[in-house]
């Protein structure tokens, strides 16, 4: 929750993060003078995106958490003390101990190992729907925004209908039609994202369509496909990255929800949502079965939210 809409940072350039503004070197001073002359006072005080991101403590925390998570997920086979589905019926429902740091579940499976392997499922179910939804949504947004007219009207009507559903309800509807299961749940969450990406990309494209560099490229003989891909698409990358990062958090949350309801990842696959659905039956005693998977989901989603917010503050084209 930083002050995006307030324009406040323009006056206090160091407000986003820690510390004072670093002293400017000679090159930077010239650059600032040039930018000031060209764009006016306030934009010159605005640091470039990378520096703005680096000053944002919350965003950096998010980035570190995300990287840590990816590392843990990748190294899960090396780090996990046990195989995620190795049962040990003599050690069922054990509380956390030196042997089992996170305790064990009702089959005597090591919870730490399952949570570690669950990170892989979680990242996968976060990334796949976002990438596929973003690809399709971007395509629709590019076409609608660039060509306009009737194509635009029809495509955006369809997107408006998709947006008329509450997100989780749309996902449930898709799962309801296709049937429960990991693949169908991923498709469902991807469908939910499509109209959001389409809308964002379209609005950027409409703004870019009439820019000088697009006209110039067209005058030089660029075809529509090339024009869209090489000249128009890159301008959407900023907003798209922000939306996708926040989208990963949302996708992980939705997938965990679907798996919790028994409609997503199916047992015995180690998944955080599924672990919670199973663990709740052993309350109030086996609190560790509730705590660790829940904290894992929350931290993961938090990491992507922090990172996404930070990226938005750094890249926001409205500044």
């Amino acid at each position, binding site marked *: 929750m930083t002050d995006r809409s*307030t324009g406040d940072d323009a006056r206090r350039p160091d407000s986003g993060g820690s510390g004072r503004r670093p002293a400017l070197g000679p090159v930077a001073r010239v650059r600032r003078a040039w930018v000031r002359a060209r764009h006016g006072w306030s934009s010159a005080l605005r640091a470039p995106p990378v520096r703005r991101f680096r000053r944002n403590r919350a965003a950096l925390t998010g980035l570190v958490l995300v990287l840590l998570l990816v590392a843990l997920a990748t190294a899960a086979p090396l780090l996990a003390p046990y195989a995620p589905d190795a049962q040990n019926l003599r050690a069922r429902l054990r509380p956390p101990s030196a042997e089992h740091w996170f305790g064990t579940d009702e089959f005597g499976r090591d919870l730490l190992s399952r949570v570690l392997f669950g990170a892989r499922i979680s990242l996968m179910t976060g990334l796949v729907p976002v990438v596929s939804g973003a690809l399709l949504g971007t395509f629709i947004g590019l076409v609608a925004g660039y060509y306009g007219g009737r194509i635009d009207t029809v495509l955006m009507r369809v997107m408006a209908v*998709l947006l008329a559903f509450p*997100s989780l*309800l749309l996902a*449930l*509807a898709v799962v309801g039609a*296709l049937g429960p299961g990991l693949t169908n749940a991923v498709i469902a969450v991807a469908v939910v994202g499509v109209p959001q990406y389409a809308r964002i990309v379209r609005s950027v494209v409409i703004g870019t369509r009439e820019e000088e560099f697009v006209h110039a490229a067209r005058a030089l003989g660029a075809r529509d496909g090339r024009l869209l891909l090489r000249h128009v698409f890159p301008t959407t990358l900023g907003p798209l990255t922000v939306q996708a990062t926040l989208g990963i958090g949302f996708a992980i949350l939705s997938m965990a929800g679907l798996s919790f309801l*028994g409609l997503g990842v199916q047992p015995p696959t180690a998944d955080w949502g599924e672990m*919670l659905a199973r663990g709740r039956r052993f309350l109030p005693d086996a609190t560790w079965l509730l705590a660790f998977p829940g904290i894992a989901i*929350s931290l993961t989603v938090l990491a992507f939210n922090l990172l996404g917010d930070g990226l938005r503050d750094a890249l926001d084209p409205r500044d």
Partner: protein
Amino acid sequence: MARYIVRRLLGLVPVLLGVALLVFAMLWIAPGDPVLALVGESAQGMSREALEELRRAYGLDRGFVAQFVDYVTRLARGDLGDSIRTGRPVLEEVWLRFPATLLLAGSAMAVAIALGMALGVLAAIYRRTWVDHAAVVVALLGVSVPVFWSGLVLMLVFALRLGWLPASGYGDWRHLVMPAAAVGFSSSAFIARITRASMIETLRQDYVRTDHAKGLAPGVVHRHALRNALLPVVTVVGLQFGGLLGGAVLTETVFAWPGVGRMLVDAIRARDLPLVQGTVLFIATLFILVNLVVDLSYAALNPKVRYD
């Protein structure tokens, strides 16, 4: 204003038709024979002839468009089909559970608005202090913690350990506290965010400075500012309603709350397609109407909005 409302209502027609089309298409997207999807397990012993008979009876032998027209006509008459499991009309099943969901959603909304606005206003007034930072952290947790998990944690602490509240079920207000708190908390974050930004913006206005200059007490000044800061918040409340309905689906399952959401999940598990379709259509329509009401109230609250 009346003409504006009528025009907005008419504008909903294509969206509602689109929603109906999508819900109708679920039958075609569903893997396998649509007849089997509609009749369910009871079709297993049926002869091929009997199935063909049924296909004709449901009108499934005709083209997609003809069937869709049929579907919409039936919808207009309030006929959402029959549930496979219970054999009762879908609309009846939905109406039976709707009050419980409405109660949960309404209470959760109240929690979300109260909590979100309080956090947002405090964060804006005590900007860049620990109060602001704490409010930001709480709001961030709201969007990051899964609603079914916070529900379970509440249940563990207040029902299973402390025994203050019943763990699940439907009855008096004590059953409502935890589900409403869980859903409300997760929806409050966005409201807090918008309230804070809007309040900060408002506190910078000239009339607020004038208020201060006149020597009004800070409380009075903040009340003046809040009124104007609330407009953007109203629109967000409508959008949040969607997330709230989604949260309700999950939370109803956690707390065995006999609402529409839990019925939907059960219907999906049981592959009761007519019931799934009917429930989805019902909730989507509700969501669209709520957003219209929010839009209209925004227009009514904001004297700057013109109706032409």
